[in-house]
């Protein structure tokens, strides 16, 4: 049997970035927005505004629209201001990036972690564990999770920290697809000699998982994680868009876009800035993930 992947994960990443300019552009986009999220406080201090303070002086008194052209874009307000409140849109967008990244990355960690553990257990142990996992994955994939999350947002009391709720719920519903892929990988790895040898030498399933299986799973896991982050960021934005995600005043791109609906005819910039940020992050992660998949999974090579 041929061994498909001979490349280590860091080597693959650098190879992708050197060869695939779309993946490189995606990575740069993600890194720039990630830096903006990390240094949100510094950036907004530099600009001189925060995302919470109302400022009626930046508004047109009669209409409630931002004063000045392009939604009030100026040296003082880099992205202009929010209509009706006069809050600084740049501050809202960079702090919104923080919300998006926090929820997107944490939820991915939860779903990938669960998926890898459950999928590896199903593939390696087999038997009833495998049957239970496969069956619950089927049930989960039949679960109307978006409707359920919307409904959940309505009934969970406001005291419960929203960010935590979103991370847990979004993360929890994401495990089945990861588990399926990992299970399939482990089923083939299980038949390889180094795993058999470890088992014959008396290694416990946990030891086999840690020292034999996991190192060989990093590649697909990394691809899945990269490709699942934008979906999770998008889900948070969608839930906030519908009013059942992050609660105000915590900035969120989805909520800003939702609020922009009422203003889209008169102040399109209010839609454009958070909208472009959301699009850029999603595209960046997708481009990087596609590149990684091409590099780590030879079956996909040459199709681009």
């Amino acid at each position, binding site marked *: 049997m041929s061994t498909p992947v001979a490349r280590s994960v860091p080597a693959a990443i650098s190879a992708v970035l050197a060869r695939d300019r779309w993946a490189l552009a995606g990575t740069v986009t993600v890194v720039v927005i990630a830096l903006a999220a990390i240094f949100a406080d510094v950036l907004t201090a530099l600009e001189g505004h925060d995302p919470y303070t109302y400022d009626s002086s930046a508004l047109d008194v009669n209409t409630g629209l931002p004063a000045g052209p392009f939604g009030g874009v100026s040296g003082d307000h880099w992205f202009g201001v929010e209509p009706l409140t006069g809050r600084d849109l740049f501050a809202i967008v960079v702090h919104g990036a923080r919300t998006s990244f926090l929820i997107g990355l944490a939820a991915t960690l939860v779903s990938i972690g669960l998926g890898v553990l459950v999928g590896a257990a199903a593939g390696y142990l087999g038997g009833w564990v495998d049957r239970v996992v496969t069956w619950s994955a*089927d*049930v989960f994939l*039949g*679960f*109307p*999770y*978006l*409707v*359920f999350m*919307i*409904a*959940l*947002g*309505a*009934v*969970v*009391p406001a005291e419960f920290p929203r960010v935590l709720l979103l991370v847990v719920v979004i993360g929890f519903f994401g495990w089945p697809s990861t588990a399926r892929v990992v299970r399939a990988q482990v089923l083939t790895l299980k038949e390889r000699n180094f795993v058999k040898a470890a088992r014959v030498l008396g290694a416990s399933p946990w030891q086999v998982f840690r020292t034999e299986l996991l190192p060989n799973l990093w590649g697909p896991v990394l691809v899945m994680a990269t490709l699942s982050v*934008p979906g999770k960021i*998008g889900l948070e*934005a*969608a839930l906030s*868009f*519908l*009013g*059942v995600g992050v609660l105000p005043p915590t900035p969120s791109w989805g909520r800003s*876009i*939702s609020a*922009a*609906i009422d203003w*889209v*005819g008169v102040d*399109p910039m209010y*839609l454009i800035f958070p*909208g472009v940020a*959301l*699009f850029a992050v*999603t*595209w960046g992660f*997708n*481009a990087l993930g596609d590149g990684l998949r091409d590099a780590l999974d030879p079956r*996909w090579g040459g*199709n681009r």
Partner: protein
Amino acid sequence: MKNLKFALTRLGGMVLVLLIVAFCTFVVFYLVPSDPALLACGKPCTPENLALAREFMGFDEPWWRQFLTFLGGIFAGRTFGTGVTAIHCSAPCFGYSFRQNADVLELIGDRLPVTFSLAVGAAVLWVGLGVAIGVHAALRKDTWFDRAALAGSVIGVSAPVYLVGLLGILVLGFQLNVVPVGNYTAFTEDPVRWAWGLVLPWCVLAFAHGAHYVKLTRSQMLETMSEDFIRTARAKGVPERTVVGKHALRNVLLPVVTLTGIEFGSLLGGAVITERVFSLPGLGGLLIEAVHGRDLATLLGCTLFAGFLVVVANAVVDLSYGLLDPRARLT
């Protein structure tokens, strides 16, 4: 006989999944501290009135009894209260909304045509266009058409539906004034205005969802066209049209059918967002109203209905697999 057994097992599995969805939703909704009776009992709410409201709505029983009553209502209908004030919800009763004073199933039935119009029209567009563009892009690999299709699909995959929708409204609706924004006419009333009012939502949904089909069809087509049976077909002189349209397309359609099924199953979730953007009075609107009014009965009904859609879509996918691929026929 074999087919009957297969159908019955399949049906049993579907019912089981729905039961699990109902159970999970029920447990989560009713264990979370929020009291529908408190919302219904009016102000000032005396403890006696509250107890009365609870008894009327059936919330005075332990949760598992309530769940069994709910399940019983689906088959036998149920009656809330007694005497003149009694409210009867006939079978199949998927709950009664005391917020809106209506049978949940009727509420869903009222809104379904809107969501259905939206989804079916868009799906026809996105599957048709997506597959057609994907096939042509694969056949003309590395030409400008292929590159444009790829670039378009990359944008479509990454742009959220509501963003594309709002930009569409902004450009086509407000700036150019070519399509109407935000009015829905029932098909039975005026089919032309029905279609015209839905043109923009259809196109937006088709763009966002079709992108996945372009990518999927293209890569699948490239893979299929390099396989041996295609070479054989060509070698024995089968016309290229037949090679592509019959031999190759059959293989390409398998994953497309799966994807369509999955997307149709999640239709209700997606509809919530699209309907909010285009202010369409569909099921999504019902769900959002229920969220804001803390209408647990309607929420439960909508979740169950969404689960029903997923399960049915999965079953249809399995069946059409058998039609497309004789190897997958029920054995």
